[in-house]
């Protein structure tokens, strides 16, 4: 160390330190900066964003503004994330057909690739929840019973016991969850579309969301069994009462008419 210390006043010492510092900085950068492969992805990403921006200009900009900043007709999309776009466009809600109390679900007119491009563009406007991957919403490793309990605590007050939907104020409504893609249910919880509150990971953990999606898959999909027979919409006593009146009492009255019409006749009239 003495040698080094003795030469610290050398005229070239500053140059050596500078070169060393540059080398360390460069080396650290090389070590921690995104690899070449990531750089290649980045170009694909930027391409997707570019394409998404074009689609956005055609389908979305008239309400959400040319830069997604929002207008009097639609909210700002800065920070809503890719999951929101995947939900809204994937379920056909967006682009909206007309303004109203609530935008209904309808046929989706975009391809999956186009939805991804739109999502990439909107995600580039500000950070937000990403589209969940399959492992997050698949039923593997989910607790269905727990999911049911969570559903009844957090969701049933608007969506009904088994997700058949219900009314909200002034023409708004909680839609039925029957036949909804598990990915979209997951995204809806994450992003809180339209009148729905969002259930971020702090409110309902990732596992909680997975449980809820699995519960709905068990009780409210076309595969779920109805041990009692026809479900009658799963809407509870109103439809049951209507069915009881029309088919229960109706059939009894029909039978009564039949029985009363068949009688022994004392004499031919």
């Amino acid at each position, binding site marked *: 160390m003495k040698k080094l210390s003795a030469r610290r006043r050398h005229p070239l010492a500053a140059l050596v330190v500078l070169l060393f510092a540059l080398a360390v900085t460069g080396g650290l950068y090389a070590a921690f900066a995104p690899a070449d492969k990531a750089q290649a992805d980045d170009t694909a990403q930027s391409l997707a964003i570019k394409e998404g921006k074009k689609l956005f200009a055609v389908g979305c900009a008239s309400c959400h503004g040319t830069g997604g900043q929002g207008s009097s007709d639609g909210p700002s999309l800065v920070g809503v994330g890719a999951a929101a776009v995947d939900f809204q466009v994937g379920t056909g809600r967006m682009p909206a057909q007309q303004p109203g109390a609530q935008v209904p679900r309808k046929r989706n007119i975009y391809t999956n690739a186009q939805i991804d491009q739109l999502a990439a563009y909107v995600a580039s406007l500000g950070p937000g929840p990403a589209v969940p991957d399959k492992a997050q919403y698949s039923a593997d490793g989910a607790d269905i019973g727990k999911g049911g309990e969570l559903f009844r605590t957090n969701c049933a007050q608007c969506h009904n016991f088994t997700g058949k939907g219900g009314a909200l104020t002034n023409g708004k409504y909680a839609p039925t969850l029957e036949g909804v893609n598990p990915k979209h249910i997951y995204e809806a919880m994450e992003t809180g579309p339209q009148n729905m509150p969002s259930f971020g990971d702090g409110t309902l953990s990732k596992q909680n969301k997975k449980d809820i999606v699995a519960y709905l898959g068990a009780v409210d999909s076309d595969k779920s069994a109805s*041990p009692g027979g026809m479900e009658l919409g799963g809407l509870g006593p*109103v439809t049951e009462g209507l069915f009881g009146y029309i088919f*229960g009492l109706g059939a009894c009255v029909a039978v009564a008419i039949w029985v009363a019409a068949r009688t022994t006749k004392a004499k031919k009239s």
Partner: protein
Amino acid sequence: MSNETTATTARRGQAPRGERIADWADGRLGIYSLAKANMRKIFPDHWSFMLGEVALYSFIIIILTGVYLTLFFHPSMAEVTYHGSYVPMHGIKMTQAFESTLHISFDVRGGLLIRQIHHWAALVFLAAMMVHMMRVFFTGAFRKPREVNWLFGFLLFVLGMFTGFTGYSLPDDLLSGTGVRFIEGVILAMPLIGSYLQMFIFGGEFPGHDIIPRFFTIHVLLLPGIMLGLLVAHLILVIYHKHTQFPGAGKTNNNVVGMPLLPVYMAKAGGFFFLVFGVIAVIAAVASINPVWAIGPYRPDQVSTGAQPDWYMGFAEGLVRVMPGWEWNFWGHTINFGVLIPILVFPLVLVAIAVYPFVESWVRGDKREHHILDRPRNVPTRTAFGVAWLVAYFVMLIGGGNDLWATHFHLSINSITWFVRIAFFVGPVLAFIATKRICLGLQRRDKDKVLHGRESGIIKRLPHGEFIEVHEPLNQEQLHFLTQHEQPEPVELGPEVDENGVRRKLKRSQKLRAKLSKGYYGEDNVIPKPTVEEYKEITSGHGHH
């Protein structure tokens, strides 16, 4: 038995077994005179007379299936964790009541079918009682001597509502628990006594551990016991009064035209019981009702949308749903009109229909017995009142299901609520006026038919070129049917002054009565039926008109 009979029996050997059994029973129960008086009891034939039978049979079905359910049901609110065969409920904490309901549904042989038969039969029972009551109302079958039986029937309907409600609450599922919470709110809304009554009924704070066992006792013992007694009394009175009949040839106020109880009606009624049982069993086999496994166990911190009671309580639900949430706060006390007014209106609406027979007989000054039924059109005011009552009832049913009307017809729930608020007051008035006009129109048509005959659709050209439609005269039976009804004069107040020229003092009730009576029989409220002279004059003339 006299010696002589014994001697006869001994001479001919033993009597047939059936006779011996009947003899044995008669000696101890006195059934001979009972059977003699009732076996040939005549019942008239009409499908609408069988609505009460539908109610009776569904009640029997409910008792039979209910007994089976009590064998497996545990009316306890002790907490257990579910580990049964329904996977989506695994690991969920619930009361024993709910667990045993799941057990009945999934693990007891035939349990789910019996549960569903029990519940569907309950809905049909109440519906049949209501429709039966309406048949009795619109045909005037509640008139003397049947007013008391009308009240028995009404009580059966009201008790049926509460039996149904307590039964609906027993599984302790999220839906029915919400209903029990609703009842707690209703009790709390009663001024002064509310909090004390709530503590007494629930044995502490809601939900406590007492309400399900208490409801169980009320549901399987108290209310069905009273209902069974009323039912027997209702049937005894039907036999005692004899059945009413629709007007027609040969039918008078002093006879009953129909078939005897034995053997015809025994066979018909017995067969009809099995048909009703079959209909309800088929419905229970194909259509789910109250799927508690999907609804989940009750927890006071959870609630679902679309939480409605069974249909017979929907009327009360509607009243509470559409009532504005007004309340007064003073000196630390709250009067909650949002709930209090509906629970006052609820019994009033029911009582309005219950006391109607007494009001009508007072207004009409009618103390005679009536065994011939009215055609609804011939008593326009009564018919209009009944329709108005039904409109009020069904408007409130819409209010009770306002959320489902909103989602299924793409309407705003707020608009529906406002519609119901207005329609509850305006609807019955409009219905009253419209029904009355329709009844009078039908009376005019009847008169026209009597005087001019039935339009035959045959067009005839007369020699001078005129076209006429040929009217076929009615036969004697049809003429009788259209003109047999009475058209009494309205109750008169009498002259304003007495024989000394002094103004008579009239009680306010007398004036009211005269006014209401005019509403029944006044000039504008009845179409005078054709007289014999009118009929003769027209029919003896040109033969057409």
